[in-house]
């Protein structure tokens, strides 16, 4: 058990006369700047953005997307609406229909309003689908577009990288 101590920060003494000329600080400051300048030649800190990109972290939260069952290629989402409930910006809208196999439901249309989505990741956490969450945080973060209506991502865009919903086999995207 230790207590936090309060300490009074010492203030530097008033400036001596020879410091009253800018020269000393100027030289000190210049030496720091020069060091960084020289280092910058060797290992630049900036990247040239659209051409060069920083690697994204595996946990990076971009815009949410949907995915399909890694083995069967079927839609994972069973319309439990947990994501809809927890979303703080109310940007998820799901229309449901009975699953063609007769068991359960599946989304007829799934809309995420990317304009409102704040990428908080709560939907992916709350998602109750088995074996992995149907909605997941992709690594997509660039979203410039011409017009507000284009931000309403529907199934075609949410299932990006997967074949059209009813047919074909899907794969879990590399995460």
């Amino acid at each position, binding site marked *: 058990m230790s207590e*936090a*101590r*309060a300490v009074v920060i010492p203030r530097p003494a008033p400036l001596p006369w020879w410091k009253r000329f800018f020269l000393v600080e100027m030289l000190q400051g210049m030496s720091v700047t020069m060091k960084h300048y020289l280092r910058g030649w060797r290992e630049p800190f900036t990247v040239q953005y659209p051409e060069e990109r920083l690697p994204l972290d595996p946990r990076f939260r971009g815009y949410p997307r949907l995915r399909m069952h890694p083995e069967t290629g079927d839609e994972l989402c069973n319309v439990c609406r947990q994501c809809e409930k927890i979303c703080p910006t109310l940007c998820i809208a799901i229309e449901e229909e009975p699953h063609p196999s007769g068991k359960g439901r599946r989304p007829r249309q799934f809309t995420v309003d990317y304009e409102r989505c704040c990428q908080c990741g709560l939907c992916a956490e709350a998602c109750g689908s088995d074996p992995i969450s149907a909605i997941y945080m992709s690594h997509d973060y660039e979203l410039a577009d011409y017009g507000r209506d284009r931000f309403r991502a529907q199934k075609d865009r949410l299932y990006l990288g997967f074949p059209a919903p009813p047919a074909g086999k899907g794969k879990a995207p590399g995460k």
Partner: protein
Amino acid sequence: MYQTSELEINMGPQHPATHGVLRLVLRLDGETIVEVKPVIGYLHRGVEKLSENRGYRSVTPLTDRLDYCAAFAENHSYVGAVEKLLGVEVPPRAQAMRVVLAELQRIASHLIWLATHGLDIGAMTIFLYAFREREKCLDLFEGYCGARLTYNALRIGGVPQEFPDGWTEALRRFLDELPTRIAQYETLLTGNRIWRLRTEGVGVIDARTALGLGLTGPTLRGSGVDYDVRKYAPYENYRDYAFDIPVGSKGDTYDRYLIRMEEMRQSRRIILQALEALPDGPILAKVAGRIRPPKGAEAYFMTESPRGEMSVYLVSDGTDKPYRVRFRSPCFNNLQGLPTLSKGHMVADVVALIGSIDIVLGCVDR
């Protein structure tokens, strides 16, 4: 012979030195300030109203948007308030992890303060250097929770995930180089004649006045009051760590600068202690899936955010939505002291003072 008349001018709302959209109505006598009237509300988003209409779990992302330079601190006080309301005990490992992240957030936030404060006063170089280090903090946060600014990094009952592999090593590497970096900033500023002339004796406020005005955080500690929530109302496991609370002796802008520099070092010290003694165990306490605190429950939870005392008051009415959420924002209360601080100074000093009370307008307007 000469006659001066008072002049009223507007500074802001779109002014680079106001750190957002703050409008100051200045009444000037020549270049001396007679009165400052802050006009706020340009960034008001009604977070308190919004929170009343969301479930308890869905409010955390909203708190990110209050103080966007220190989103973790806001998450922390909100989540802590809900835990207090429910009587949930956070597991020790989650507590230590929260401390690590909170202190990292303090470093990141003080770095951005240093950058912008320096820029306001005219020290351009420091801006780039401090941002470079802050970038590393943000990288660490990205590695932990996946976002760089609006973290949503906490859940009611603990933390959502473990530190990823290699994260603590990366954090240690960052902490290893931090002291040399801070020393570099200090070379550029602490003894610098221009810096000292611009900050020493500017905005002196004595402890009584500062306390009465509700100033908290480094702004209050500059006046020599050691009020720090981490010490006086310890939350998480701050009791277990040894750290200093720097306080100033004069209460001017220079003191507040020195305090924040020292706080970065102390935060580093706390993180190192916390990493050393990171307990094992669960990271999330058991909390009911649907959070419905009983009717009449009220809780107040205070945390020490980088800007001061950030606290949340929660009132429950027995439903799954909070009945009333009050965000006590340090910036709102600190900005209240600006008229007192800036009386009698020059217009150029107002810029230094806004920087030294370290406000974020998202937090002021909520």
